[in-house]
Protein backbone atom coordinates (compact mmCIF):
# COMPACT_ATOMS: atom_id res chain seq x y z
CA UNK A 1 0.00 0.00 0.00
CA UNK A 2 2.85 2.35 0.84
CA UNK A 3 4.33 1.44 -2.52
CA UNK A 4 1.10 2.40 -4.29
CA UNK A 5 0.86 5.66 -2.38
CA UNK A 6 4.40 6.47 -3.34
CA UNK A 7 3.70 5.83 -7.03
CA UNK A 8 0.52 7.92 -6.94
CA UNK A 9 2.44 10.78 -5.36
CA UNK A 10 5.16 10.44 -7.99
CA UNK A 11 2.51 10.53 -10.72
CA UNK A 12 0.80 13.65 -9.38
CA UNK A 13 4.13 15.29 -8.77
CA UNK A 14 5.17 14.67 -12.38
CA UNK A 15 1.85 15.79 -13.84
CA UNK A 16 1.23 18.92 -11.79
CA UNK A 17 4.03 19.97 -9.47
CA UNK A 18 6.88 19.36 -11.89
CA UNK A 19 4.87 19.76 -15.09
CA UNK A 20 7.27 19.25 -17.98
CA UNK A 21 6.06 22.15 -20.06
CA UNK A 22 5.02 24.77 -17.55
CA UNK A 23 7.54 24.19 -14.76
CA UNK A 24 10.54 22.59 -16.42
CA UNK A 25 9.99 24.45 -19.72
CA UNK A 26 10.65 21.40 -21.87
CA UNK A 27 8.81 20.69 -25.12
CA UNK A 28 7.87 24.29 -25.86
CA UNK A 29 8.07 23.78 -29.64
CA UNK A 30 5.01 21.52 -30.05
CA UNK A 31 3.38 23.30 -27.10
CA UNK A 32 3.19 26.45 -29.24
CA UNK A 33 3.08 24.78 -32.65
CA UNK A 34 0.24 22.29 -32.35
CA UNK A 35 -1.95 24.09 -29.83
CA UNK A 36 -4.28 25.77 -32.31
CA UNK A 37 -7.16 23.30 -31.98
CA UNK A 38 -8.08 21.22 -28.97
CA UNK A 39 -8.49 17.96 -30.89
CA UNK A 40 -5.13 18.06 -32.66
CA UNK A 41 -3.51 19.20 -29.42
CA UNK A 42 -5.05 16.24 -27.64
CA UNK A 43 -3.84 13.83 -30.33
CA UNK A 44 -0.38 15.34 -30.12
CA UNK A 45 -0.54 14.84 -26.36
CA UNK A 46 -1.55 11.21 -26.81
CA UNK A 47 1.25 10.55 -29.31
CA UNK A 48 3.76 12.20 -26.98
CA UNK A 49 2.43 10.29 -23.98
CA UNK A 50 2.77 7.03 -25.87
CA UNK A 51 6.32 7.83 -26.96
CA UNK A 52 7.25 8.95 -23.43
CA UNK A 53 5.89 5.83 -21.74
CA UNK A 54 7.54 3.52 -24.24
CA UNK A 55 10.77 5.48 -24.00
CA UNK A 56 10.76 5.23 -20.22
CA UNK A 57 10.14 1.50 -20.51
CA UNK A 58 12.98 0.85 -22.95
CA UNK A 59 15.35 3.43 -21.55
CA UNK A 60 15.21 1.80 -18.12
CA UNK A 61 16.35 -1.54 -19.55
CA UNK A 62 18.92 -0.02 -21.88
CA UNK A 63 20.34 2.04 -19.06
CA UNK A 64 20.35 -0.60 -16.32
CA UNK A 65 21.29 -3.73 -18.21
CA UNK A 66 23.50 -2.35 -20.96
CA UNK A 67 24.92 1.07 -20.15
CA UNK A 68 25.45 0.72 -16.39
CA UNK A 69 26.34 -2.95 -16.52
CA UNK A 70 29.02 -2.35 -19.16
CA UNK A 71 30.25 0.99 -17.77
CA UNK A 72 29.00 2.76 -20.86
CA UNK A 73 27.11 5.64 -19.18
CA UNK A 74 28.89 8.11 -21.43
CA UNK A 75 26.87 6.71 -24.36
CA UNK A 76 23.58 7.65 -22.71
CA UNK A 77 22.70 10.47 -25.12
CA UNK A 78 23.39 8.38 -28.20
CA UNK A 79 21.59 5.30 -26.96
CA UNK A 80 18.56 7.27 -25.81
CA UNK A 81 18.26 9.30 -28.99
CA UNK A 82 18.17 6.25 -31.24
CA UNK A 83 15.54 4.67 -29.00
CA UNK A 84 13.42 7.82 -29.15
CA UNK A 85 13.93 8.26 -32.90
CA UNK A 86 12.82 4.72 -33.68
CA UNK A 87 9.80 5.00 -31.40
CA UNK A 88 8.72 8.22 -33.06
CA UNK A 89 9.16 6.58 -36.43
CA UNK A 90 6.96 3.74 -35.28
CA UNK A 91 4.27 6.11 -34.00
CA UNK A 92 4.42 8.07 -37.25
CA UNK A 93 3.94 4.92 -39.32
CA UNK A 94 1.06 3.84 -37.13
CA UNK A 95 -0.75 7.19 -37.22
CA UNK A 96 -0.29 7.41 -40.99
CA UNK A 97 -1.80 3.95 -41.26
CA UNK A 98 -4.60 4.47 -38.77
CA UNK A 99 -5.61 8.09 -39.35
CA UNK A 100 -4.38 10.05 -42.38
CA UNK A 101 -6.35 13.07 -41.19
CA UNK A 102 -4.53 13.14 -37.89
CA UNK A 103 -1.27 12.54 -39.75
CA UNK A 104 -1.89 15.69 -41.79
CA UNK A 105 -3.02 17.72 -38.81
CA UNK A 106 0.13 16.90 -36.81
CA UNK A 107 2.25 17.55 -39.89
CA UNK A 108 5.87 18.38 -39.28
CA UNK A 109 5.44 18.23 -35.49
CA UNK A 110 5.07 14.47 -35.54
CA UNK A 111 8.65 13.75 -36.67
CA UNK A 112 9.70 16.64 -34.46
CA UNK A 113 8.71 14.60 -31.38
CA UNK A 114 12.10 13.02 -32.03
CA UNK A 115 13.83 16.24 -31.15
CA UNK A 116 11.31 17.14 -28.47
CA UNK A 117 13.47 17.99 -25.49
CA UNK A 118 10.69 16.91 -23.12
CA UNK A 119 11.24 13.30 -24.12
CA UNK A 120 15.02 13.42 -24.07
CA UNK A 121 14.86 15.29 -20.76
CA UNK A 122 12.53 12.70 -19.31
CA UNK A 123 14.81 9.87 -20.49
CA UNK A 124 17.88 11.51 -18.97
CA UNK A 125 16.13 12.16 -15.66
CA UNK A 126 15.41 8.49 -15.11
CA UNK A 127 19.04 7.48 -14.36
CA UNK A 128 19.61 10.84 -12.70
CA UNK A 129 16.78 10.33 -10.18
CA UNK A 130 17.59 6.65 -9.85
CA UNK A 131 14.04 5.44 -10.49
CA UNK A 132 13.33 1.71 -10.51
CA UNK A 133 11.39 0.03 -13.32
CA UNK A 134 7.85 0.77 -12.05
CA UNK A 135 8.81 4.29 -11.07
CA UNK A 136 10.27 4.90 -14.52
CA UNK A 137 7.05 3.80 -16.18
CA UNK A 138 4.93 6.02 -13.91
CA UNK A 139 7.35 8.88 -14.43
CA UNK A 140 7.23 8.55 -18.23
CA UNK A 141 3.46 8.21 -18.29
CA UNK A 142 3.02 11.13 -15.87
CA UNK A 143 5.31 13.31 -17.98
CA UNK A 144 3.16 12.55 -21.02
CA UNK A 145 -0.08 13.24 -19.17
CA UNK A 146 1.37 16.51 -17.87
CA UNK A 147 2.34 17.49 -21.40
CA UNK A 148 -1.15 16.60 -22.67
CA UNK A 149 -2.86 18.62 -19.93
CA UNK A 150 -0.70 21.66 -20.63
CA UNK A 151 -1.14 21.55 -24.41
CA UNK A 152 -4.91 20.90 -24.26
CA UNK A 153 -5.35 23.73 -21.74
CA UNK A 154 -3.53 26.24 -23.90
CA UNK A 155 -5.31 25.01 -27.02
CA UNK A 156 -8.65 25.62 -25.32
CA UNK A 157 -7.55 29.11 -24.35
CA UNK A 158 -6.31 29.82 -27.86
CA UNK A 159 -9.59 28.69 -29.38
CA UNK A 160 -11.41 31.17 -27.13
CA UNK A 161 -8.84 33.79 -27.99
CA UNK A 162 -9.73 33.51 -31.69
CA UNK A 163 -12.87 35.45 -30.86
CA UNK A 164 -11.10 37.87 -28.57
CA UNK A 165 -10.22 41.43 -29.49
CA UNK A 166 -6.44 41.14 -29.35
CA UNK A 167 -4.41 44.31 -30.06
CA UNK A 168 -2.81 44.06 -33.47
CA UNK A 169 0.75 44.04 -32.19
CA UNK A 170 0.01 41.10 -29.88
CA UNK A 171 -1.88 38.90 -32.34
CA UNK A 172 -0.60 35.38 -33.00
CA UNK A 173 2.55 34.21 -31.25
CA UNK A 174 3.04 37.12 -28.77
CA UNK A 175 -0.34 36.66 -27.05
CA UNK A 176 0.26 32.90 -26.99
CA UNK A 177 3.56 33.41 -25.20
CA UNK A 178 1.89 35.73 -22.69
CA UNK A 179 -0.77 33.07 -22.15
CA UNK A 180 1.90 30.42 -21.63
CA UNK A 181 3.63 32.68 -19.12
CA UNK A 182 0.46 33.22 -17.11
CA UNK A 183 -0.24 29.47 -17.18
CA UNK A 184 3.27 28.78 -15.93
CA UNK A 185 2.73 31.28 -13.10
CA UNK A 186 -0.47 29.46 -12.16
CA UNK A 187 1.30 26.10 -12.13
CA UNK A 188 4.05 27.59 -9.95
CA UNK A 189 1.39 27.56 -7.25
CA UNK A 190 1.90 23.80 -6.95
CA UNK A 191 5.61 24.23 -6.23
CA UNK A 192 6.89 22.41 -3.17
CA UNK A 193 3.58 20.69 -2.40
CA UNK A 194 5.01 17.24 -3.04
CA UNK A 195 8.64 16.31 -2.80
CA UNK A 196 9.39 12.88 -4.15
Amino acid sequence: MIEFEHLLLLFIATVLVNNFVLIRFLGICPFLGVSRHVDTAFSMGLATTFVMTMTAFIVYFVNTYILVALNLEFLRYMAFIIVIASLVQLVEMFIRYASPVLYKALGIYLPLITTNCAIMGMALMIPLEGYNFIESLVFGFGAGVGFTIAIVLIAGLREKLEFGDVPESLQGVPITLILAGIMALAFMGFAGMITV
Partner: protein
Amino acid sequence: MESLFLYAVVSMGGIAAILAAGLGIASRTFEVETDPRVDEVTDTLPGANCGACGYAGCDAFAEAVVEGEAPVSGCPVGGEEVSESIADILDLEAGTTEEEVAQLLCQGGEEETVSTAHYEGVKSCNAASNVGMLEKECKYGCIGFGDCEAVCPFDAIEMNENGLPVVDEDACTACNSCVEECPHDLFVLAPLSGKNHIRCCSHDEGKFARGACDVGCIACRQCVKVCPVDAIEMEDNLAVLDYDTCINCGLCAEKCPMNTIDFYGERVIEIEITEECIGCTRCARECPVDAISGEAKEQHEIDPDICVKCGLCYEVCPAEGAIVKETEDKSQT
Protein backbone atom coordinates in the same frame (compact mmCIF):
# COMPACT_ATOMS: atom_id res chain seq x y z
CA MET B 1 40.17 -0.19 -22.20
CA GLU B 2 39.92 -2.20 -25.36
CA SER B 3 37.08 -4.25 -23.96
CA LEU B 4 35.14 -1.08 -23.20
CA PHE B 5 35.49 -0.04 -26.83
CA LEU B 6 34.31 -3.47 -27.93
CA TYR B 7 31.34 -3.40 -25.55
CA ALA B 8 30.38 0.06 -26.78
CA VAL B 9 30.41 -0.92 -30.44
CA VAL B 10 28.62 -4.22 -29.90
CA SER B 11 25.97 -2.89 -27.53
CA MET B 12 25.13 0.19 -29.60
CA GLY B 13 25.16 -1.86 -32.76
CA GLY B 14 22.91 -4.40 -31.07
CA ILE B 15 20.39 -1.80 -29.92
CA ALA B 16 20.38 -0.24 -33.37
CA ALA B 17 19.93 -3.61 -35.09
CA ILE B 18 17.01 -4.61 -32.86
CA LEU B 19 15.27 -1.25 -33.35
CA ALA B 20 15.89 -1.38 -37.10
CA ALA B 21 14.38 -4.84 -37.31
CA GLY B 22 11.37 -3.66 -35.32
CA LEU B 23 10.89 -0.69 -37.64
CA GLY B 24 11.25 -2.91 -40.68
CA ILE B 25 8.47 -5.19 -39.50
CA ALA B 26 6.31 -2.18 -38.59
CA SER B 27 6.75 -0.59 -42.01
CA ARG B 28 5.42 -3.78 -43.61
CA THR B 29 2.52 -4.03 -41.20
CA PHE B 30 1.48 -0.41 -41.44
CA GLU B 31 2.14 0.06 -45.13
CA VAL B 32 -0.01 2.77 -46.70
CA GLU B 33 -0.75 2.63 -50.39
CA THR B 34 -0.19 6.02 -51.94
CA ASP B 35 -0.81 7.27 -55.43
CA PRO B 36 2.47 6.55 -57.25
CA ARG B 37 2.04 9.77 -59.21
CA VAL B 38 2.42 11.74 -55.98
CA ASP B 39 5.92 10.32 -55.55
CA GLU B 40 6.74 11.02 -59.20
CA VAL B 41 5.59 14.62 -58.91
CA THR B 42 7.52 15.02 -55.67
CA ASP B 43 10.67 13.87 -57.45
CA THR B 44 10.32 16.48 -60.19
CA LEU B 45 9.79 19.34 -57.74
CA PRO B 46 12.81 21.40 -56.63
CA GLY B 47 12.46 20.04 -53.10
CA ALA B 48 13.25 23.36 -51.47
CA ASN B 49 10.10 23.14 -49.29
CA CYS B 50 9.91 26.90 -49.56
CA GLY B 51 6.12 27.10 -49.40
CA ALA B 52 5.89 29.71 -52.18
CA CYS B 53 3.10 27.64 -53.75
CA GLY B 54 0.96 28.16 -50.68
CA TYR B 55 1.23 24.58 -49.46
CA ALA B 56 3.24 23.21 -46.55
CA GLY B 57 6.21 21.95 -48.51
CA CYS B 58 6.74 20.08 -51.76
CA ASP B 59 5.02 16.87 -50.58
CA ALA B 60 1.80 18.70 -49.77
CA PHE B 61 1.91 20.53 -53.11
CA ALA B 62 2.48 17.27 -55.03
CA GLU B 63 -0.54 15.74 -53.34
CA ALA B 64 -2.69 18.77 -54.10
CA VAL B 65 -1.63 18.74 -57.76
CA VAL B 66 -2.46 15.08 -58.20
CA GLU B 67 -5.84 15.64 -56.56
CA GLY B 68 -6.44 18.51 -58.95
CA GLU B 69 -6.61 21.15 -56.22
CA ALA B 70 -3.44 22.99 -57.16
CA PRO B 71 -2.60 24.17 -60.68
CA VAL B 72 0.10 22.31 -62.58
CA SER B 73 2.00 25.57 -62.90
CA GLY B 74 1.74 26.19 -59.16
CA CYS B 75 5.44 25.90 -58.35
CA PRO B 76 7.00 29.32 -58.89
CA VAL B 77 10.51 28.05 -58.18
CA GLY B 78 10.49 25.25 -60.75
CA GLY B 79 8.97 27.44 -63.43
CA GLU B 80 7.92 26.20 -66.84
CA GLU B 81 10.24 23.21 -66.90
CA VAL B 82 8.75 21.69 -63.77
CA SER B 83 5.15 22.44 -64.73
CA GLU B 84 5.70 20.70 -68.05
CA SER B 85 7.09 17.57 -66.46
CA ILE B 86 4.25 17.53 -63.92
CA ALA B 87 1.83 17.88 -66.81
CA ASP B 88 3.51 14.90 -68.48
CA ILE B 89 3.04 12.77 -65.38
CA LEU B 90 -0.61 13.73 -65.05
CA ASP B 91 -1.35 13.70 -68.81
CA LEU B 92 -2.48 17.27 -68.71
CA GLU B 93 -1.55 20.30 -70.72
CA ALA B 94 0.46 22.93 -68.94
CA GLY B 95 -0.99 26.39 -68.89
CA THR B 96 -4.52 25.57 -69.96
CA THR B 97 -5.79 28.24 -67.61
CA GLU B 98 -7.04 31.33 -69.36
CA GLU B 99 -5.79 34.68 -68.23
CA GLU B 100 -8.26 36.53 -66.05
CA VAL B 101 -8.80 40.10 -65.05
CA ALA B 102 -10.85 41.77 -62.35
CA GLN B 103 -14.07 43.43 -63.52
CA LEU B 104 -16.18 45.85 -61.51
CA LEU B 105 -19.85 44.96 -61.76
CA CYS B 106 -21.23 48.40 -61.02
CA GLN B 107 -21.21 51.60 -62.98
CA GLY B 108 -23.23 53.73 -60.64
CA GLY B 109 -20.83 56.57 -59.92
CA GLU B 110 -21.72 59.88 -58.31
CA GLU B 111 -23.33 61.12 -61.54
CA GLU B 112 -25.54 58.13 -62.19
CA THR B 113 -26.84 57.46 -58.71
CA VAL B 114 -29.13 59.15 -56.23
CA SER B 115 -27.62 60.04 -52.87
CA THR B 116 -29.91 60.12 -49.88
CA ALA B 117 -27.49 60.47 -47.01
CA HIS B 118 -24.21 62.01 -46.05
CA TYR B 119 -21.55 59.88 -44.39
CA GLU B 120 -19.02 61.59 -42.15
CA GLY B 121 -17.13 58.60 -40.75
CA VAL B 122 -13.88 56.90 -41.65
CA LYS B 123 -13.34 57.05 -45.42
CA SER B 124 -13.36 53.31 -45.96
CA CYS B 125 -15.93 51.19 -47.78
CA ASN B 126 -15.67 48.40 -45.21
CA ALA B 127 -16.12 50.82 -42.30
CA ALA B 128 -19.13 52.48 -43.93
CA SER B 129 -20.61 49.11 -44.79
CA ASN B 130 -20.08 47.86 -41.22
CA VAL B 131 -22.03 50.72 -39.67
CA GLY B 132 -24.66 50.45 -42.40
CA MET B 133 -24.22 54.04 -43.54
CA LEU B 134 -24.38 54.26 -47.31
CA GLU B 135 -24.63 57.55 -49.12
CA LYS B 136 -26.22 56.09 -52.22
CA GLU B 137 -29.79 54.99 -52.43
CA CYS B 138 -28.68 51.68 -53.98
CA LYS B 139 -27.51 49.41 -51.18
CA TYR B 140 -25.72 47.03 -53.54
CA GLY B 141 -23.52 49.44 -55.47
CA CYS B 142 -20.04 50.87 -55.19
CA ILE B 143 -19.48 52.82 -51.96
CA GLY B 144 -16.67 54.75 -53.59
CA PHE B 145 -14.06 55.16 -50.85
CA GLY B 146 -11.56 53.06 -52.76
CA ASP B 147 -10.76 50.15 -50.45
CA CYS B 148 -10.03 48.20 -53.64
CA GLU B 149 -7.56 50.84 -54.79
CA ALA B 150 -5.80 50.63 -51.41
CA VAL B 151 -5.68 46.85 -51.28
CA CYS B 152 -4.51 46.25 -54.88
CA PRO B 153 -0.88 45.12 -54.58
CA PHE B 154 -0.16 45.95 -58.23
CA ASP B 155 -1.58 49.49 -58.36
CA ALA B 156 -3.95 48.31 -61.06
CA ILE B 157 -6.99 50.04 -59.59
CA GLU B 158 -7.54 53.77 -59.59
CA MET B 159 -10.58 55.76 -58.52
CA ASN B 160 -11.87 58.06 -61.25
CA GLU B 161 -13.50 61.47 -60.82
CA ASN B 162 -16.90 59.85 -60.83
CA GLY B 163 -16.03 57.91 -57.69
CA LEU B 164 -15.71 54.52 -59.36
CA PRO B 165 -12.64 52.28 -59.47
CA VAL B 166 -11.09 51.67 -62.89
CA VAL B 167 -9.10 48.48 -63.45
CA ASP B 168 -5.97 48.65 -65.57
CA GLU B 169 -6.24 45.36 -67.48
CA ASP B 170 -2.53 45.25 -68.26
CA ALA B 171 -1.48 45.69 -64.65
CA CYS B 172 -4.13 43.40 -63.14
CA THR B 173 -2.86 39.92 -62.27
CA ALA B 174 -6.20 38.50 -61.11
CA CYS B 175 -4.80 38.09 -57.59
CA ASN B 176 -8.32 38.19 -56.12
CA SER B 177 -7.45 40.83 -53.50
CA CYS B 178 -10.11 43.32 -54.62
CA VAL B 179 -12.68 40.54 -54.98
CA GLU B 180 -12.17 39.68 -51.32
CA GLU B 181 -11.88 43.27 -50.10
CA CYS B 182 -15.01 44.79 -51.62
CA PRO B 183 -17.74 44.68 -48.94
CA HIS B 184 -20.42 44.59 -51.64
CA ASP B 185 -18.70 41.85 -53.69
CA LEU B 186 -18.73 43.98 -56.80
CA PHE B 187 -15.58 42.51 -58.35
CA VAL B 188 -15.41 39.27 -60.31
CA LEU B 189 -12.54 37.62 -62.10
CA ALA B 190 -13.56 37.37 -65.75
CA PRO B 191 -11.61 35.92 -68.65
CA LEU B 192 -9.50 38.50 -70.46
CA SER B 193 -11.28 37.58 -73.72
CA GLY B 194 -14.65 38.47 -72.19
CA LYS B 195 -15.66 41.83 -73.68
CA ASN B 196 -19.20 41.85 -72.39
CA HIS B 197 -20.14 42.61 -68.78
CA ILE B 198 -23.40 43.15 -66.97
CA ARG B 199 -22.19 45.87 -64.68
CA CYS B 200 -24.76 45.79 -61.93
CA CYS B 201 -25.22 43.84 -58.71
CA SER B 202 -28.54 45.29 -57.58
CA HIS B 203 -31.16 42.80 -56.51
CA ASP B 204 -33.74 45.57 -56.14
CA GLU B 205 -36.99 45.30 -58.04
CA GLY B 206 -37.18 47.20 -61.32
CA LYS B 207 -38.86 50.39 -60.12
CA PHE B 208 -36.59 50.75 -57.09
CA ALA B 209 -33.50 50.07 -59.16
CA ARG B 210 -34.58 52.64 -61.73
CA GLY B 211 -35.19 55.20 -59.00
CA ALA B 212 -31.80 54.69 -57.40
CA CYS B 213 -29.53 54.51 -60.42
CA ASP B 214 -29.58 55.53 -64.09
CA VAL B 215 -27.64 52.47 -65.22
CA GLY B 216 -28.90 49.70 -62.92
CA CYS B 217 -30.43 46.38 -63.93
CA ILE B 218 -34.23 46.67 -63.77
CA ALA B 219 -34.78 42.97 -64.36
CA CYS B 220 -36.64 43.46 -67.63
CA ARG B 221 -35.32 40.12 -68.97
CA GLN B 222 -34.67 41.51 -72.46
CA CYS B 223 -31.06 40.33 -72.40
CA VAL B 224 -32.12 36.85 -71.29
CA LYS B 225 -34.54 36.63 -74.21
CA VAL B 226 -32.14 37.94 -76.83
CA CYS B 227 -29.06 35.92 -75.82
CA PRO B 228 -28.46 33.32 -78.57
CA VAL B 229 -26.53 30.99 -76.29
CA ASP B 230 -28.56 31.33 -73.06
CA ALA B 231 -25.58 32.75 -71.22
CA ILE B 232 -27.68 35.13 -69.11
CA GLU B 233 -29.89 34.11 -66.23
CA MET B 234 -32.09 36.09 -63.91
CA GLU B 235 -31.16 35.62 -60.29
CA ASP B 236 -33.30 37.52 -57.80
CA ASN B 237 -34.03 40.57 -60.00
CA LEU B 238 -30.55 40.68 -61.48
CA ALA B 239 -29.22 39.51 -64.83
CA VAL B 240 -26.11 37.38 -64.32
CA LEU B 241 -23.75 36.49 -67.15
CA ASP B 242 -21.99 33.15 -67.47
CA TYR B 243 -18.61 34.03 -68.95
CA ASP B 244 -17.92 30.47 -70.08
CA THR B 245 -20.98 30.41 -72.31
CA CYS B 246 -20.95 34.01 -73.59
CA ILE B 247 -19.75 34.39 -77.18
CA ASN B 248 -19.29 38.18 -76.97
CA CYS B 249 -21.82 38.97 -79.69
CA GLY B 250 -23.02 42.17 -78.05
CA LEU B 251 -26.71 41.59 -78.72
CA CYS B 252 -27.71 41.95 -75.07
CA ALA B 253 -25.84 45.24 -74.74
CA GLU B 254 -27.82 46.60 -77.71
CA LYS B 255 -31.12 45.53 -76.21
CA CYS B 256 -30.49 46.68 -72.65
CA PRO B 257 -32.72 49.73 -72.03
CA MET B 258 -30.62 50.94 -69.10
CA ASN B 259 -27.17 50.57 -70.70
CA THR B 260 -26.24 48.32 -67.81
CA ILE B 261 -24.45 45.93 -70.13
CA ASP B 262 -21.03 47.13 -71.16
CA PHE B 263 -19.91 45.68 -74.50
CA TYR B 264 -16.58 46.63 -76.02
CA GLY B 265 -15.87 43.66 -78.28
CA GLU B 266 -16.40 43.31 -82.00
CA ARG B 267 -19.99 43.71 -83.17
CA VAL B 268 -20.94 41.90 -86.37
CA ILE B 269 -22.38 44.28 -89.01
CA GLU B 270 -22.44 42.11 -92.12
CA ILE B 271 -22.35 38.34 -92.26
CA GLU B 272 -22.90 36.01 -95.22
CA ILE B 273 -22.22 32.50 -96.42
CA THR B 274 -19.83 32.11 -99.37
CA GLU B 275 -19.34 29.40 -102.02
CA GLU B 276 -16.91 27.63 -99.70
CA CYS B 277 -19.93 26.28 -97.79
CA ILE B 278 -19.85 22.49 -97.58
CA GLY B 279 -23.52 22.20 -96.64
CA CYS B 280 -23.03 20.56 -93.28
CA THR B 281 -26.20 22.24 -91.88
CA ARG B 282 -24.44 22.96 -88.62
CA CYS B 283 -25.04 26.73 -88.83
CA ALA B 284 -28.70 26.22 -89.64
CA ARG B 285 -29.13 24.05 -86.59
CA GLU B 286 -27.28 26.43 -84.29
CA CYS B 287 -28.91 29.65 -85.48
CA PRO B 288 -31.04 30.97 -82.58
CA VAL B 289 -33.51 32.74 -84.87
CA ASP B 290 -33.65 30.18 -87.73
CA ALA B 291 -32.38 32.71 -90.23
CA ILE B 292 -30.30 30.15 -92.16
CA SER B 293 -31.86 27.93 -94.78
CA GLY B 294 -30.48 25.43 -97.29
CA GLU B 295 -30.36 21.74 -98.18
CA ALA B 296 -27.67 19.39 -96.92
CA LYS B 297 -24.48 19.41 -99.06
CA GLU B 298 -25.60 22.62 -100.76
CA GLN B 299 -24.70 26.20 -100.10
CA HIS B 300 -26.74 27.75 -97.32
CA GLU B 301 -28.17 31.23 -97.14
CA ILE B 302 -28.76 33.75 -94.39
CA ASP B 303 -32.02 35.68 -94.46
CA PRO B 304 -30.87 39.24 -93.62
CA ASP B 305 -34.34 40.23 -92.41
CA ILE B 306 -34.40 37.61 -89.70
CA CYS B 307 -30.66 37.51 -88.84
CA VAL B 308 -29.73 39.21 -85.55
CA LYS B 309 -26.01 39.18 -86.44
CA CYS B 310 -24.89 37.30 -83.37
CA GLY B 311 -22.03 35.54 -85.18
CA LEU B 312 -22.79 32.15 -83.65
CA CYS B 313 -22.82 30.50 -87.12
CA TYR B 314 -19.34 31.90 -87.74
CA GLU B 315 -18.15 30.32 -84.47
CA VAL B 316 -19.51 26.86 -85.23
CA CYS B 317 -18.72 26.69 -88.99
CA PRO B 318 -16.17 23.90 -89.59
CA ALA B 319 -15.23 25.01 -93.15
CA GLU B 320 -12.71 27.79 -93.37
CA GLY B 321 -13.91 30.84 -95.24
CA ALA B 322 -17.44 29.54 -95.66
CA ILE B 323 -18.86 32.31 -93.51
CA VAL B 324 -17.39 35.80 -93.74
CA LYS B 325 -18.25 38.66 -91.44
CA GLU B 326 -17.54 42.31 -91.18
CA THR B 327 -17.19 43.67 -87.68
CA GLU B 328 -17.10 46.97 -85.92
CA ASP B 329 -14.84 47.50 -82.94
CA LYS B 330 -17.07 48.76 -80.15
CA SER B 331 -14.23 49.52 -77.78
CA GLN B 332 -13.73 52.96 -79.36
CA THR B 333 -17.26 54.18 -78.95
